[in-house]
Structure formats: C-alpha cells, structure tokens
C-alpha cells in the first residue's frame, strides 16, 4: 500500500462548500483526462466508449449529490482520488473495473422486469427469499 500512500496526498480541508464544489469538478476533470489510459490499461475499447465512461464517472459523483457537509465531501473526494489512483496503478484487474463500473452492482442480471412494477413489496421480497 505504500505506493498509494505516496500517490495520495491529503489536501487541506475545504473551508466552505464552494471550495469543496470546485474540488469535485477538479477530480471529475482529472478522472476524465485519465479515461484514455484506463481504457488502454484494462483493454476496454470493445466494451465501452469514452463518453459512456465519462457518464459513469459523473453518475458515481452524482450518487452523493445530496451531501452538503464540506467535511464529508472532503472525505468522499479522498476516497475517489484513492480509487482513481488504484485504477491507474493497475491495482485492479479488468473484471474489477468492468464489474464495478461498466456493469454496475446489478451485474448481468436484469431484474427490472416491467411486469414487476405494480407488485407489492411482499411479493418482491417473496421472489427474492423466504426470509423477510
């Protein structure tokens, strides 16, 4: 883990929300700039396009859109930088990147059956397991 520690420098805390916000844009830009090398490292050309990866990064950031505490944003920024460094240092393997980002947590399972829309939560749970 020493290389990670070396690579990730902990920046000083953001003073206010504005500063944190600008840092989020910074990390988004850095991540976008590293997309070509990520695609090269993990051989992703035949799986995703650059624009898709960009929107995946954006959606990862937007997951935390409701956070307003600058301290929490700083922490999330740190974790994001660390993750980006891991990816760039080839600390992950191809299937990690594909599984985590390209396919998402649902994976290949497509559970979003349009028939399921009107079901009660009981029935949705029933289809999943006996214990709920």
């Amino acid at each position, binding site marked *: 883990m020493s290389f990670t520690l070396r690579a990730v420098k902990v920046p000083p805390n953001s003073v206010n929300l504005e500063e944190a916000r600008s840092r989020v844009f910074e990390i988004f830009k850095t991540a976008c700039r590293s997309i070509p090398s990520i695609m090269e490292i993990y051989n992703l050309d035949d799986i995703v396009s650059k624009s898709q990866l960009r929107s995946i990064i954006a959606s990862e950031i937007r997951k935390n859109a409701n956070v307003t505490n600058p301290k929490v944003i700083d922490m999330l920024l740190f974790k994001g930088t660390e993750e980006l460094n891991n990816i760039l240092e080839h600390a992950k393997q191809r299937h990690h990147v594909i599984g985590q980002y390209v396919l998402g947590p649902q994976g290949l399972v497509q559970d979003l059956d349009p028939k399921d829309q009107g*079901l*009660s*939560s*009981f*029935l949705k749970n*029933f*289809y999943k397991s*006996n*214990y709920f």
Partner: protein
Amino acid sequence: MGLGLLASRAMRPLKYSNSRVFIRSIVSKPELQSPEASSAAAATALEPDLPPRSPVGGARVHFPNPEDAIEVFVDGYPLKIPKGFTVLQACEVAGVDIPRFCYHSRLSIAGNCRMCLVEVEKSPKPVASCAMPALPGMKIKTDTPLAKKAREGVMEFLLMNHPLDCPICDQGGECDLQDQSMAFGSDRGRFTEMKRSVVDKNLGPLVKTVMTRSSVPHNFWLNRCVRFATEVAGVQDLGMLGRGSGEEIGTYVEKLMTSELSGNVIDICPVGALTSKPFAFKARNWELKGTETIDVTDAVGSNIRIDSRGPEVMRILPRLNEDINEEWISDKTRFCYDGLKRQRLNDPMIRGVDGRFKAVNWRDALAVVAEVMLQAKPEEIVGIAGRLSDAESMMALKDFLNRMGSNNVWCEGTGAQPNADLRSGYIMNTSISGLEKADCFLLVGTQPRVEAAMVNARIRKTVRANNAKVGYIGPATDLNYDHQHLGTGPKTLLEIAEGRHPFFSAISNAKNPVIIVGAGLFERKDKDAIFSTVEAIAKKGNVIRPDWNGLNVLLLNAAQAAALDLGLVPESSNSIESAKFVYLMGADDVDLEKLPNDAFVVYQGHHGDHGVYRANVILPASAFSEKEGTYENTEGCTQQTLPAVPTVGDARDDWKIIRALSEVAGMRLPYDTIGGIRSRIRTVAPNLLHVDEREPATLGPSLKPEIKSEMDLTPFGSAVENFYMTDSITRASKTMAQCSAMLLKK
C-alpha cells in the same frame, strides 16, 4: 445437573472442616457491618443464618391433606413436606440437588446405586436418600464430610469397571457420570486388574448399546432402562441376566426391543451404555443448537427440542411438559428427523408435456397456477390441507379459496362431513393429564398405542396406578396393558348402549369413566350414528357430568384440531369428482382416484410424496422444523413450532406461498406478516392464539340434534397401519423404514 453446583458443593465441606481445625480468622461479613442487619440477626437468633435456597428445578410441594405435613430439617433449614416424601424429595424441595444415578422421579425406586447417600442425625450409617422415607423431625445433612466420603467411595466403585472411552462416547458432554466424577471422582484409580467387558446387544435400529459402559459391577446398580421398559413402555424385553460380575442387562433371548417408546431409554441412561444409533458419532452435544419446538408427527403435540448443527437437524429430544408428554416422546417423534433431509422439494416445478418435471422460478410457477385457477369455475376449485399443516397456512388457504368463490376447503383425515360446530365433538375433553384420574376406559375404534403413543403411555400409567379397567372395541391389537377385547365393531357398541353388555356396568359403576373414540371413524359413512350411540352410552353411564367430561375423541394428525377450529369443512362431499383445479397443501393421503383426468393439481409441500405423483405444479414449502407455525393438539392445547434450521433450496413458508399466489391471481389477501394472519385467526378461532394453553370446549354434546340413522355393522378398521410411517416426513425417513421392516415383522 449443573457441574458448577456439584463442584461448589464438593468444595463446601472442605471449607467447614478447615474452619474447625485452624484458629478461626477474623472475618467481616457485609451484614455484620450494617447495624440494622446485625440487630435483626440477633432478634431472630434461633433462625439459622443460611442463604435462602430455591427448590431444585422449580420443584413444588402439593399437600393433598394439610394434616399430613411433617417437618424435617435439611442442612439446618426447617421444612414442611407431606407425609410419604423421601429424604431425596425433601432435599429437592429445600433446594439441595442430591447426586443420583439409579433414582428417577418417574420410575420406581431401586435404591441400589448408593450415590444419593446423606447423613441423618442419630443414624449410625449414611442413608440412601432416594429410598428412605422422611420422618418427622429428621435432621438431614447433605454436605458433611461423611456424606462426601461415602459418595466418593461409590464413585470409585462405579468407575472401577467403567471404560475410559469418554472421547469416543456419544454421551460425552451430557453424561451424569462424567459430571459427577468431576465432583466426587478421585484423580487416580486404585483398580489394577482388568476391567470387565461385556458383549454388546443388538436392540434394533434405534438404540445402540455399549454394554461395557453399563455400570453393573457388583449388584445391579443402575437399571433405569429395565425399570423404564417394564413400567412406562410396558414391554418385558429388557432384564437383568447373570449374577455377580457376570451380571448383564439385555434382552432375554436374542430379540429386538419392540416398544414405541424405546428411544427414551437413551435419555434416562445416566451413563453412555444406551445411545442413539442414528445419532452415533454424528455430532457432539456442545456444537448443537437447541430449538424448543413441538412435534407434528401425531396429534399429541409432544414438546421437543430440535438439536441442529448449521442447516442440518442432528437429533430430536423430549422437553418436559407434564400436561402432554411428561418427559417421554415416541420413537417416531425422536427418530423421524432423517426424513427431513431426504426426498425434499427444493424448487418450484412444472410438469411438461412429456410428463417430466422441470424446475422453474417462483414467478413463472405462480403465474401458471394463477392463470389455470382463474380459468376454472369457482365451484370446480378444491383445496385440501395436509396432516402437517399449521393453522396460519390453513387460514390463508381458506381465505384465498373463499375469495376465489369456492368453499371446498378441508383438511385430510376429517372425513366428508366433519362435525366442526361443537368443539367437544372433536377434542379430548378430559385432557391428556386428566386421563390419570380415570378408573374405567372404553376405547372405541382406536388403538392409542399406534395412533398416539403418549396418550397410550398415560393410559398405561393410569392402569398401573389405579387398576383402571380398559375395554376395547376394534380389530385385534396389542395394547401393552390389561384390557378386555369386547368386540370388533358397532354390534358391541350397540350392546353396551342398550345395557346388555357386562362392560356397561363397569362404565356406570366407575367414578370417572372415560370413553375414547378414534378419529379413524371420521372416515366411515355411518359416523354420525356411531357418535350418537357413543353419546347414548355416555349419557346412560354418567360419563359427562358438570365436573367431569369423559367423552373424548383421539385425533390422528397434528393439523386436524386447528382445521376444525378454523372451519375447514367441505361444502359438498363429492367435490373431488367434479374438480378442475385441486390445491393440495401438503395433502398426501387424499384419494385422487376419482379426480377427472383433465383436472389441474397443484402440490405445495416439503416432500416428494404421494401427492406429487398426480401434481402438475409443485410449489416447495418449508417443513415444521423450518417455520413458525401454530398447531393445536388433540386435547385442544395450542402450541407453536419455531424454526430450527433454514429452509431447503428455494422453498418458502406455506402461508407466504398462498399470500403470493393470491396477489398473482389478483385476489390479494390482506395480510403481509405472520402477525397479520394471526389477527385474522383471532376473528375465527381466538383459542389458536392462546399459546401453550389448553382451551376446553365450552358446550357439551347435549346440544346436538338427535340423529336417527342406521349403523353399518362392518367392524372398525385400524386407522394407522404402520406406526412408523404416517406422513410425508416419516415415509421419507430411512430409520423409520428400518423400524417398520424389523420391528413390525410378524
């Protein structure tokens, strides 16, 4: 017996003797430091200042006659006990647990292991407390050096010939001998000769014997198993053979132990001589998780503990319930658990055009069932609950089918036109423990030994204790107590009802007569006539009085009482013939011969048993060991099972399947939780929510209208052909198959 308790008691005399020998050191007790307490102690100086103790195992004293109370002193405590108590019982009431091997509270007193020796003042020798009646003013001392030394001597003798095989003994960890040798055993043996060894006996497929462990060194010491077999189980198979060091416990000739209660000798054996054969070398008792639940293989609802390791049921043990099973269970209850691992249904399946089942997911299976169901006409829909169904799922099934417009819901084994109106007409009104008060039994078309082994044990106890007369009407059978075989069919019943039979005078002269009618008669066409004849006998023989209701029905299945309470009664008796859609909820013993070939059958259950052969769709459900469900036993006592192990595969709880199906079919049931379904049950049968309580029937049979129909004179049949295999779990069990092959062999 707690190890710590014994160990601490073993330590106590040492402390006392120390204080006598050495100069007493200055100690300060907290109660001496506070002035109020010390003055209070001075005021009641006559009372011994010993810490209060509570009776062992919640032992209670019942004084049948207050004048008979006598006072004894246990370790200085004054104590009031009824006359006839033994010294050991007095000590238990005083909160002193006396170590014992041969003594068992439910068996006769043998007094031969001498482990329970205590010192009694003015007695020259220590006395065996289990055999000594307590006398007024007796001063009993349980933890004197003399008593301890005596017990240590006994322990040394017991261990003399006992093999040192605790590491490979199944009793290890729950062994009385192990526990007590921790307290009273010596750390080295003085016995240098060869240990005695005895050839093991074959007692059948259930009980494994390691006779060398049986502690019979000098005179027959612990023969709990022999006493159990002759007294409770009522078989004369086990006995003592030989004399001196050649003495052995065994079957007299090379013979198997043929009792339906034989498994209980495993529990009462205080050493590891008798252990469970199916459980041998499978698990250690400390790695098992115990779940206190109830048994569903018959209508008694015996209290059991399911011991499981991970997802597997390892063994079943009885739990104490004085009102139902005391501390025994039948062999079917104890050894049926391997059936829970075989023949299980684990995926929803649909039968294809080629007649083979194909595993599908729940979504597809429920969609198919709902589609077919909605196409059938309401009167062509039939639902049948199985003999192991719990009250919750039966309630859901009835609600669901009623919403679909059908009222053809019933529980198998209750017959075509069951009487569900008067509760007294289908439960055991005397209660199982109440049978002990009876002095005359009339068994009509029931063989309690195979239908409900625990009820039979209770009858046998009564016959032994009160010399109660037993008259039996039905096919020839082997009841293990003295009885008169009065006849085989309704003819004898009519003779008794008309007072022509000599047994009628026995009923009318008895103080508390009991009539037990078997639920096998529910299946007969003339059941109303039979029941009215039995009621006529009851009326003439004064069987039903305000203080005593001796007219009982002995049910066969765990689900029956709850099904009748919930009103699972078919609308028409021949609904099977015209059915197009049949929902079998664990029903395996329904006669589907008359079912039209184009009918669609859904089988929801946990075992691939008879019901599956005709099924078009299988919905896997959880067994009684995997779900929380309410069951009512034959005496009307409501009890609940608790999940001990997780469900198998993709199975779901019964009521959840019906609730999900109702939503897929567009008739959504209004409950999502087990609590919701129970509040629905409250509106139908509130007694099913009073868990662990027996709810007696409020109205007697006198309200029933007179029935004038002829009795069919064909003799009564036997309701249970094979005691060991009565339902889908026991039919899947290998142990039960071995039992029926070996023990029922005529």
